[in-house]
């Protein structure tokens, strides 16, 4: 029974026999590698900030910040140029609002159904379907909005002038469908995290399934549900291709969803396609609008992250 294993080992009781028999540099190298990989994500954020700030700063050295935020005319590439960002913000908010009107009821409805009503088999069919919906490229959604939804809206419009070829309504509607999986899956997660005992208690008091869903589960999961909606808002604000294709390229400060309007993202994309020279004011508008968009979504994201933590703390 001679074994290499035990013979290599220092005998118990000999001085320092519990110390490392050979140095393990490998373990240290690996740890350094892992930390380095983790820093890539930190560098990404720093990179985004570095990409945004200097050009945006230069832009605001030429354009008054107050005029940028409150101006109602966006015409950066015309002469005389005008840099009021409100039409882009208005377009973004209009499309986002329409998307939420579609996505919040349908997404939460789907979440309640999957979490409280559906049996295992139904869930097994519908959850992958929602994933497929989430996996469709936004360029395809945009194409469908422009070529299929808008013509249908135009043909069924009951009275007056129907939607224009490019309009906020079709883009917002399709974007709403796109956001359904985001809202449904996060909301369902938070509802599933509500302990069984809470439901059982309510059922034992004679509540119906609807009462349990709306009066017990929904309030208990509220922070997660709000997080889902907030994340949905963030996605809507940042979505580019659908609006670039279907909502049009004209800045238009209007409250009429049947008109075309340009969003912040669509402007950035359009300016990018133009391949503007580095350092020009036109090039810098990309970064000024981008910085504004980044700040808006950052606020939403941090809010959503906070809310998700809250429900995890309560039930996990």
């Amino acid at each position: 029974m001679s074994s290499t294993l035990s013979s290599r080992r220092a005998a118990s009781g000999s001085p320092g026999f519990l110390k490392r028999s050979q140095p393990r540099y490998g373990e240290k190298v690996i740890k350094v590698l892992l930390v380095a990989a983790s820093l890539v994500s930190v560098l990404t954020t720093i990179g985004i900030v570095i990409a945004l700030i200097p050009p945006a700063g230069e832009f605001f050295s030429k354009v008054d910040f107050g005029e940028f935020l409150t101006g109602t005319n966006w015409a950066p590439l015309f002469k005389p140029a005008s840099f009021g960002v409100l039409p882009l913000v208005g377009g973004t908010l209009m499309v986002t609002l329409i998307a939420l009107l579609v996505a919040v009821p349908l997404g939460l409805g789907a979440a309640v159904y999957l979490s409280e009503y559906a049996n295992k088999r139904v869930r097994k069919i519908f959850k992958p379907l929602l994933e497929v919906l989430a996996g469709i490229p936004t360029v395809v959604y945009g194409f469908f909005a422009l070529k299929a939804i808008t013509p249908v809206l135009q043909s069924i419009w009951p009275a007056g002038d129907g939607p224009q070829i490019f309009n906020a309504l079709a883009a917002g509607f399709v974007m709403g469908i796109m956001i359904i999986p985001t809202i449904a899956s996060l909301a369902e997660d938070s509802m599933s995290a509500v302990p069984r005992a809470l439901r059982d208690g309510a059922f034992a008091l004679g509540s119906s399934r609807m009462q349990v869903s709306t009066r017990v589960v929904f309030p208990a999961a509220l922070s997660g549900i709000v997080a889902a909606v907030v994340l949905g808002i963030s996605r809507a604000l940042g979505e580019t291709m659908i609006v670039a294709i279907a909502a049009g390229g004209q800045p238009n400060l209007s409250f009429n969803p049947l008109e075309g309007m340009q969003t912040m993202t669509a402007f950035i994309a359009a300016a990018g396609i133009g391949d503007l020279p580095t350092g020009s004011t036109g090039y810098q508008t990309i970064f000024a609008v981008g910085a504004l968009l980044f700040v808006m979504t950052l606020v939403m994201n941090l809010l959503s992250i906070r809310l998700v933590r809250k429900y995890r703390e309560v039930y996990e």
Partner: protein
Amino acid sequence: MTPPSDATGGTRIPQVAFRSAPSLAGPVFEVGSLSVFYGDHEAVRDVNMTIGHRQITAMIGPSGCGKSTVLRCFNRMNDLVPSARVAGKVHYHNEDLYGRDVDPIEVRRRIGMVFQKPNPFPKSIYDNIAYGPRVGGFQGNLDDLVEETLTHAALWDEVKDKLKTSALALSGGQQQRLCIARTIAVKPEVILMDEPCSALDPIATAKIEDLMTHLAREFTIIVVTHNMQQAARVSDRTAFFTADVDDAGVRHGRLVEYDETERIFSNPSDQRTEDYISGRFG
């Protein structure tokens, strides 16, 4: 199925000198004023005990009395809990286990551990046994080592035809004996067992107890158990732990009494031990 072979008829189990420290007759562990903290909470307070060579030491007591926590100090498994901190003396063959240069990996290769729930790796039976030697840089013939180890753990006859099948297909009792076999494949000196039978039925438990009795010829065994009969059946010495509740309502584990098993069960010196043994609390 192999019937559990007992001490007198156990010809199937070869008696091999399995350890790297043949020359030692002194105590294996000396524990003095040991306290374990989780964050600010002192989970175990002021434990003093000496653990003898090739003995089975049982640690009994009600749940939450800190016996598993103490067990995990013996092979530094407490290191894995970020908030855990150990104070006091834990000496292994006169070497401080918590000394500055001590390598917990080296410690665990000498002091193995078997857990409460059987936890075989999701790999074949063979790979489960071979894992410890492989990560320890074993250079010899693995096939021989696996056979020898399984024979030693009285499991060879049951599994020799399915070494390549998943360990998860074994029964709970077989899984736990595989986990014991896996531990002795590394050729440790000490085996720590943390309630090894609590997830098993009485027949499987009996087999493990037989195995423990056998292994005690080669190994020093420390076993935490909820089962007082088990402690009485298998162990040479027994340590009884309980939990004090302080003024603030916080529980601190404490070693009440540590003596020959026979004495603990027939004539304990502390009233609390007697109450526990006779089933009056716990």
